[in-house]
């Protein structure tokens, strides 16, 4: 009895918290699919049939029609006005494609270099290993803001301002990723690598054909981490990118806030579409991601 009471209370508390946490996202979806007039009239979705017109019509219709119309007031009215405007007036599609390209490239490059470095740190004994690890820890301690100004100066001197090379290359290796991959490859049995060497595998083949497939969960986790980092990144792209047709989504959306400040529906539709890819990727990779994060918390 006491247990049931406790559990009810627990679920009640959890549901209230969930409602509070999810409300902004639900509101975002509702605002995106509202028509231009409904935006200011209804907090969430506008009903398919407005209650006012329903009340007028109830006088004329029979009982069946009454309930039919009552149902229609519960159905949300979905309009695509905001999305049409988003893709019509604004180079939003361009921003999406730019972001896809930048994030995709970043993920592939970071994944490759970080896992390769992690493999070297996990499975080889060599001179200077402790030094390299110390170096990596050191880079994680330095806040990015310290390097921002000289890094921009360097990119400028290299003639890479307003290019994706200047945007992506300085962050092409993730030190955090190297630590993650080192951690996951430590458990790889050395016998497997010896066997590979006897069979005549080159060292790169050992990495590509043995170590990499074994750390598949970490590949999943790091793909999400890397994608999120690139997709959501703002400050560095804001500094590096100048021409509008190279803007990524965060930069483009921020610019839209200034230009379309009164068209909240369009802004919300743009925000919704910007948020969706990370959400989808999370659903695909959530198991790996949560376990990777938790492992980091305990071991770190």
């Amino acid at each position, binding site marked *: 009895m006491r247990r049931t009471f406790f559990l009810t209370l627990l679920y009640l508390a959890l549901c209230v918290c969930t409602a509070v946490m999810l409300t902004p996202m639900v509101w975002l979806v509702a605002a995106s699919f509202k028509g231009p007039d409904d935006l200011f009239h209804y907090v969430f979705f506008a009903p398919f049939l407005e209650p006012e017109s329903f009340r007028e019509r109830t006088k004329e219709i029979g009982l069946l029609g009454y309930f039919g119309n009552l149902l229609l007031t519960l159905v949300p009215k979905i309009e695509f006005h905001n999305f049409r405007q988003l893709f019509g007036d604004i180079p939003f599609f361009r921003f999406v494609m730019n972001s896809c390209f930048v994030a995709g490239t970043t993920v592939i490059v970071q994944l490759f270099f970080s896992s390769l470095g992690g493999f070297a740190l996990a499975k080889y004994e060599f001179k200077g290993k402790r030094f390299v690890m110390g170096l990596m820890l050191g880079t994680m301690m330095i806040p990015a803001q310290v390097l921002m100004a000289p890094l*921009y100066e360097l990119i400028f001197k290299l003639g890479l301002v307003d290019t994706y090379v200047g945007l992506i290359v300085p962050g092409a290796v993730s030190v955090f990723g190297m630590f993650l991959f080192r951690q996951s490859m430590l458990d790889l049995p050395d016998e497997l690598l010896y066997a590979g060497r006897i069979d005549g595998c080159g060292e790169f083949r050992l990495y590509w054909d043995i170590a990499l497939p074994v750390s598949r969960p970490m590949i999943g986790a790091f793909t999400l981490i890397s994608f999120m980092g690139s997709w959501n990144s703002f400050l560095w792209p804001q500094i590096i990118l100048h021409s509008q047709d190279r803007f990524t989504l965060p930069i483009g959306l921020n610019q839209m806030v200034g230009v379309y400040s009164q068209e909240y529906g369009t802004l919300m539709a743009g925000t919704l579409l910007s948020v969706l890819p990370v959400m989808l990727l999370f659903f695909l990779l959530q198991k790996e991601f949560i376990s990777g994060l*938790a492992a980091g*918390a305990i071991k770190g």
Partner: protein
Amino acid sequence: MTFSSHKKTAPYLFLSPFLLLFVIFGLYPLVKSLILAFYVTNGPKSQVFVGWDNFRFLFSDPDFHKAVRNTSLFAFFSVLVQLPLSLGLALLLNQSGLRGRDFFRFAFFSPHLVGQVFVAVLFSVIFIPHFGLLNRGLHALIGLDLDTKWLGNSNLVMPALILTSLWMYVGFNMIYFLAALQNVDLDLYDAAYVDGANAFRRFLHVTLPGIRGVTVFVMILATIGSFQLFELPFVMLGNGAGPDGAGLTIVMYLYMNGFVNGDLGYASTIGWTLAIGVFLISMLQMYLTGMWKRLD
């Protein structure tokens, strides 16, 4: 794609991308920023040596004082509000016999997936007077004025930012607490139970000491993150500091001076000051929480 190489040289080859990029885009800028901090620059082209003048100006600039005050207030209150709530959520999710734990965990964690800029755009609309979700909700619940201008009133900008960051990070920190709670030795609970300790005393004497390491870890990470606050106020306040500079943060001050006004030297000065300040605060937190001794 195969290249066979000797076992001795392979690790160096595998680490060469990191080492190369580190030297070019890590070590060089680091040294350069130390030099730049003593120069006044106008964009990347012209530089004049000024000695300690950048630091002297920085510490006497009222705008910087405002930025430090705002950022510290934000860091203090957002950590103070966030951590207990994160721990509370983790405790709720850690109850045995709970069904749907994965769903609740995702619901709490999901805001973290949304990038700061996107959160900023979303909340800048949620905070608008009269039609925004927050004003409508608070109006219905406690009768707050529908026309409350969260982002237009210098006293309300900070609470709005803290609320937004709370939504973003409370579930993220919860994940760490949850992992820590699941690692507390169950035998200790049993022992405490046998000794007649009630739920509150078990929490105080078993749970809290058990998660102490992770708590300090989360607190330090949250503080460091808070001191780097930039995107939220910058985007929410229309690429500026807001009314009376109420949303001016240290990184925003750096961005404005370095990349809007083009003084990369002064930006380096600000960057180093921030880095040293955050480092000292982290050390202080470790000292005060007694984590210092554990490190030795």
